[in-house]
């Protein structure tokens, strides 16, 4: 009888100790999760513009970690949350680097592309005055070049507007497509393609 009572008491005490150990992780887990949330919130403003998929993945992982906290899996939270904080910091750093790269690309293209467009326009204007086209160039080729010039001009205007609106990703993407088209038109006109349009 006494043995049963002692066993029962020992079991109760052991269970209480285990519960206490588990709940002692709760505070640190909540703190770690909060730090991760703050790091992600701090990073996502800029990072969303340049790396939206990575931001979504990070937020998804954060949601999963919150779920673990709500289920009392504090050890898992203590393991996951610092990694999330670290990833958020890496993301912020990568986004800043990407932004600087895009700004440089735009700076180069916005300085150089107008000259390319002007060169194409000049040649198209002159050829349009010609009574006979140069050897190896047909009227159809010239028409294609004119259509290409029109497309380039429109797309370049759109790229400039995107840049003015603060959307560097869009500006650079549009400018890059202008580069490709300009290279095609220069080739049609038998003009040299500058190095910057070859990359």
């Amino acid at each position: 009888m006494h043995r049963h009572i002692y066993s029962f008491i020992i079991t109760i005490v052991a269970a209480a100790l285990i519960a206490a150990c588990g709940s002692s992780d709760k505070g640190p887990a909540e703190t770690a999760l909060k730090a991760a949330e703050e790091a992600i919130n701090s990073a996502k403003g800029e990072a969303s513009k340049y790396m939206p998929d990575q931001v979504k993945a990070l937020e998804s992982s954060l949601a999963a970690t919150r779920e673990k906290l709500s289920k009392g899996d504090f050890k898992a939270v203590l393991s996951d949350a610092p990694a999330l904080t670290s990833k958020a910091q890496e993301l912020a750093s990568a986004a800043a680097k990407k932004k600087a790269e895009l700004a440089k690309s735009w700076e180069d293209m916005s300085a150089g592309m107008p000259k390319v467009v002007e060169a194409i326009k000049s040649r198209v204007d002159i050829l349009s005055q010609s009574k006979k086209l140069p050897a190896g160039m047909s009227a159809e080729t010239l028409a294609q070049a004119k259509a290409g010039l029109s497309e380039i001009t429109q797309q370049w205007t759109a790229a400039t507007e995107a840049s003015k609106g603060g959307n560097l990703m869009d500006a650079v993407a549009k400018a890059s497509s202008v580069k490709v088209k300009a290279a095609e038109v220069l080739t049609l006109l038998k003009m040299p393609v500058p190095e910057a349009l070859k990359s």
Partner: protein
Amino acid sequence: MAEKKNDPWAIPDIGPATDEKKSGSGADAFDATQWHEVKKGETLWKIAEQYYGDGNLYPKIFDANRDVLKDPNRINVGQKLRIP
């Protein structure tokens, strides 16, 4: 590498910064000027025919090269002319 490929958090490698040696300075790399080196026996008329199909358009070439040409009838072998 396979692990990194499947990692949704993977921060993509942005790649190296612009290779200035390869592309030259920002402005030069976009220079689309067409140049023609004058050969023996050429005239602005002939050069205009070559590039425009019409010799009558030679004044376009002359105007673009006023810094090196004083007279459209006098061009020298080896001169480098801009072809607008």
